[in-house]
């Protein structure tokens, strides 16, 4: 479909025009649940970006060197999910051993990320759009950064909102949905820059 698109364009596009949250609405559960504090939101954003890149790269290899040659395309969902779950577990062990400081920051988020739809979503987009390795790398990196940016924006606003007087009933998830919707509208403004769907 779009193998000729420059990886750099894909990178920028996946942050702005095709933002995981604000254009595709993927990974909403943790986006809404963990966005009341800026500090934790950044932690989660970093963890999602990291896992997204690693899983997308491994899944790219698995898809091209395992699924396609064996004709197992109809099993790709299960395979991708299993690979993601296994990778997250190994990543956690690895970080605990070699990067204890990073583990202390991101460790609690890792199990949560296993079921984040943005992770599986990025892998599936990459397959549907026939990205090559480099394109996939930059696409997943951009998607991760885009997700990170979106949750940080929401968390920063919600933190400020904590001091504001909100109409009862709107506080909490209600206002978070509204903010997300308005942010998504604002991001529509970017969609003229590239056409990469």
């Amino acid at each position, binding site marked *: 479909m779009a193998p000729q698109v420059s990886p750099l364009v894909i990178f920028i596009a996946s942050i702005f025009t095709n933002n995981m949250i604000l254009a595709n609405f993927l990974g909403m559960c943790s986006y809404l649940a963990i966005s009341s504090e800026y500090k934790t939101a950044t932690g989660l954003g970093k963890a999602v970006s990291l896992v997204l890149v690693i899983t997308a790269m491994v899944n790219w290899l698995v898809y091209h060197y395992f699924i396609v040659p064996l004709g*197992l395309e109809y099993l790709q969902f299960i395979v991708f999910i299993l690979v993601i779950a296994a990778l997250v577990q190994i990543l956690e062990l690895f970080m605990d*051993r070699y990067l204890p400081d990073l583990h202390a920051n991101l460790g*609690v988020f890792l199990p949560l990320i296993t079921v984040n739809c943005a992770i599986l979503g990025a892998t599936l987009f990459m397959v549907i759009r026939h990205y090559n390795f480099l394109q996939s790398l930059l696409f997943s990196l951009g998607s991760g950064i885009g997700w990170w940016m979106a949750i940080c924006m929401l968390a920063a606003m919600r933190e400020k909102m904590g001091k504001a007087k909100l109409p009862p009933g709107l506080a909490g998830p209600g206002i978070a949905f509204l903010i997300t919707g308005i942010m998504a509208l604002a991001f529509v403004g970017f969609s003229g820059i590239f056409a990469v769907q």
Partner: protein
Amino acid sequence: MFSMQTLQTVFSITGISVILTLIISLAEKKLNDYGIVKISINEGSREFEVEGGQTLLGTLAENKIFIPSACGGKATCGLCKLQIHSGAGPLLPTEEPYLTPQERENDFRLACQVKVKGDMVLEIPEELFNIKEFIASVEVLDDLTHDIKLVRLKLPEGEEVKFKAGQFMQFYTKPYGKIKEKVFRAYSISSVPSEQDHLEFCIRQVPDGVCTTYVHTVLEEGDDVAVSGPYGDFYYRGDTPTMILAGAGSGLAPLRSLILDNIEKGVTADMYLYFGAQSQRDLYYMDLFQELEEKYDNFHFIPCLSQPDPNEPWDGEVGRVNPPIQRDFKDADGSQIEGYLCGSPAFLASVRQTMVDLGIPSSQIYYDEF
């Protein structure tokens, strides 16, 4: 054709799962192997070598040092706080809510969250070394109510347990049914400390509770159970002439121990026991407490039913325990009262608030948070 594809699918999924499982176990073996490490306790007064890779709480328990933990290592009770001078690694977000800035400065950590990865230097309060593990046999297993069982354990011949009335023990389950792991939970002792070779507990069936289901459905009289203890700071202080004891459901257990112990020791303080339950079928030990009330002038028993069954006789209080407490003590001097509470977190919070409103200093209200 169809069966070929089915077969292929089955084999592929199995193959993939096997490969991934192998990779994970290999990674775990490689990455989680921290070798033999040395643990030094209380400036070297106790030292031993262990295999790394487990939590500190579990590692210490394997070496017969039992640190109190009510939640079983899930970082929800904060009881397993220890001073770890070196080797604990960075503070984890799961520990943060339980440590004050001062504690953080003094190297306090939660033993259930810290993993043993290298040599460690730590401090453990001497009294924790009194905590012992017993393999006791179930002597009596009896229904107190429709969902609370009395469990009476007999300690092995020649062994004794020294506890203060109100303290709790940890129960270890064996794997059963779908539960593959040994788990432990804390239960208050309901028997008196003077009976040193027996322990009694009142254990309520919690829906889907791993340990309570074990006690209610798997355990039988004559079985062996592992318990460790005693733990906890919930015991009689005796600094005031009046004590209010309030318990709900199986929270009556430690209060029974406290009251019987006080009566045995001839404590003269006035004891008011408020027992909250839902309906008549949730009441137990009624005869015992009513008898005590008749026999001892300083003991008063006030059972309260929130939803009494209209078909059965009931002439006691109706509603929660808070209004009677408020009514009985509204003119009392709060500073002369101690509160002893046991029940669910919601019960503790509401009764505690009622007591604070009556002018009882919060430092004189005691309870264990599970």
